[in-house]
């Protein structure tokens, strides 16, 4: 009886494993001469990771590579991520691209990978510079603020009174976004910035409240520049409640899904963001090119993504500008 159960358990595990392994095995057989690139992300099963994976799938289809996106099952699993990277060394893949949970902890294993003849890169989040060839990032923290300011200023015709709304006051990336907005607006002497800086603590209800009181204090306000994602949808609600929808221009940094209706109705003019799928696709594109001996070039065009910026060993992909013309094509 006992043995029967054991036999059944064995059979079940092996059958399940064989089902899983076969899927991978067939792909491998078909792609003997294609470069095999594995992305190791921080965690799987979150929407952002799903978007990243879309880019990996697109690269596999369009670039003639074998591309996989793997990651630990739970968040911030430092050991699990290292184990996964070690497995890729054993698989003798051509390149490993990592978004580390912990930058320093992946240093030894990435060093071993390079010693084993595997090209190592980072994307989305960086590792120590000496253990990777280049790093592809979603956006430059300052530049995204400059872009928001530029779009807002254009919609305002170069004159007006603008309020800036951030998330938390201490977040490093948000501070840089705000610096970018201020820098971008300097080009437009007709635009004044209303102080103080609004902070919504990354909560939409606080964004609504803050925007309403700002509108009461400055009835002649003509624009909002929002640098954290709850900003634009919160300001939109405030404008609807105060009857100013469409009269005050709003640009932000939000997911299309957060502002879809407001953009279509003209309450929010647009947003700037990077597309996680494009980030992975562009990385795969540049990795393939690097394996062929060509480094990323400043201003180089990536099909479907746009022109990249290269600063040292850091590569930036362009943000996407979300407006009512394209928001329905963006499914994230």
């Amino acid at each position, binding site marked *: 009886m006992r043995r029967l159960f054991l036999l059944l358990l064995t059979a079940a595990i092996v059958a399940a*494993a064989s089902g899983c*392994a076969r*899927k991978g095995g067939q*792909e491998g057989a078909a792609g003997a001469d294609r470069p095999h690139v594995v992305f190791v992300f921080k965690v799987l099963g979150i929407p952002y990771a799903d978007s990243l994976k879309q880019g990996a799938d697109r690269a596999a289809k369009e670039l003639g590579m074998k591309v996989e996106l793997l990651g630990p099952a739970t968040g911030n699993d430092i*050991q699990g991520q290292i184990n996964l990277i070690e497995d890729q060394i054993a698989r003798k893949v051509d390149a490993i691209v990592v978004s580390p949970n912990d930058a320093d902890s992946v240093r*030894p294993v990435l060093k071993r990978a390079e010693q084993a003849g595997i090209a190592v890169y980072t994307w989305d989040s960086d590792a120590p510079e000496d253990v990777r060839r280049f790093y592809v990032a979603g956006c430059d923290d300052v530049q995204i603020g400059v872009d928001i300011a530029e779009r807002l200023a254009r919609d305002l015709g170069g004159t007006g009174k603008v309020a800036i709304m951030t998330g938390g006051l201490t977040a490093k990336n948000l501070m840089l976004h705000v610096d970018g907005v201020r820098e971008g607006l300097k080009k437009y002497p007709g635009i004044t910035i209303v102080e103080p800086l609004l902070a919504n603590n990354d909560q939409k209800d606080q964004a609504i409240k803050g925007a309403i009181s700002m509108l009461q204090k400055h009835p002649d306000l003509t624009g909002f520049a929002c640098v954290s994602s709850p900003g634009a949808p919160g300001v939109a609600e405030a404008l609807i409640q105060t009857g100013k929808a469409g009269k005050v221009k709003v640009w932000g940094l939000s997911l299309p899904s957060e502002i879809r209706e407001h953009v279509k109705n003209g309450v929010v003019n647009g947003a700037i963001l990077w597309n996680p799928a494009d980030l992975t696709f562009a990385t795969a594109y540049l990795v393939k090119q690097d394996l062929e001996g060509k480094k990323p070039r400043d201003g180089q065009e990536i099909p479907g993504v746009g022109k990249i910026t290269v600063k040292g060993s850091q590569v930036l992909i362009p943000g996407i500008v979300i407006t009512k013309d394209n928001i329905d094509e963006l499914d994230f």
Partner: protein
Amino acid sequence: MRRLSDRSRLHSAGSLVILAALTVYFSIAQEGFLDAGNLLSLARQYAELGLVAVGMTLVIAAGGIDISVGGTVGLTGMLLGVLVLQHGWEMLPAAAVALAVAGCVGAVNGAAVAYLGMQPVLVTLATMSLTRGAAYVLTGGVSLSGFPERFTDIATAGVAGTGIPMPVAITGLAFAGSAVLLRRTAFGRAVLASGASAEAAELSGIRVRRVRFATYLLLSLLAGVAGILLTARVSTSFADAGRNYEFEAITAVVLGGTSLTGGEASVLGTLAGVCTMAVLRNGLSLAGQSDLTRTQMLAVALLAAVLIDNLRRRLTS
């Protein structure tokens, strides 16, 4: 006694069958699996879990359970980092202090369970939160790196020119030592007797409390060693080190045929259990499978093993 141990030997033979089947399967299906480099890195990855699992075998054999092991691994590694990297201590005294703290955790677990008669699951649930919490509080959740290379090298360097990495050698010794301890010594017999029936053991002159206390202490010390080895391998102290070790260690022990109600244990079975988990994870990973698949398969395997354990006991009683 004889019948009991024979039965668990049979059962551990079962876990060896599963391991052999998986190994043969992945060797054929997955290119690179049998590669020496792969097997070596696999052994290094699972050496730490092995240490914890072998200690867990003894605790479970004596009728207990300990779910604080992951927290102990995390706390030990974090202490090591704080002492060496923030306070400039030498490696050896820092490791000794970290190990001593791990021992204290074991002493608390053992005293509460054995001498105060508290429920092992609840006691160790509390110490799990305490140790993990302390690991986070030490640096506010920030990880530390920058250990000297002579320390991080122990994760990869071979022992005495054999090519066997030090952590693997240590774990191998722990398994061999525990197997001998359990099968060939009075202490081992006392452990099994305490797990089978505490009353009967008391009547035959075994100091059940002392025996149980010792198993908790030993497990926590092994978890402490695991925490140090893990820190060397990833060259970083991080508060989350050893997460899920309680689940993985208990799964390995149960897969190996050790009965969760105590009294029956197989160190060899636990070794097979740890290897099964390693082979399964690595094999699926080499096939490009996501970690989610593996976690689910492990959970199913654990349920199946517990089911078998239950049915087996019902059939034989």
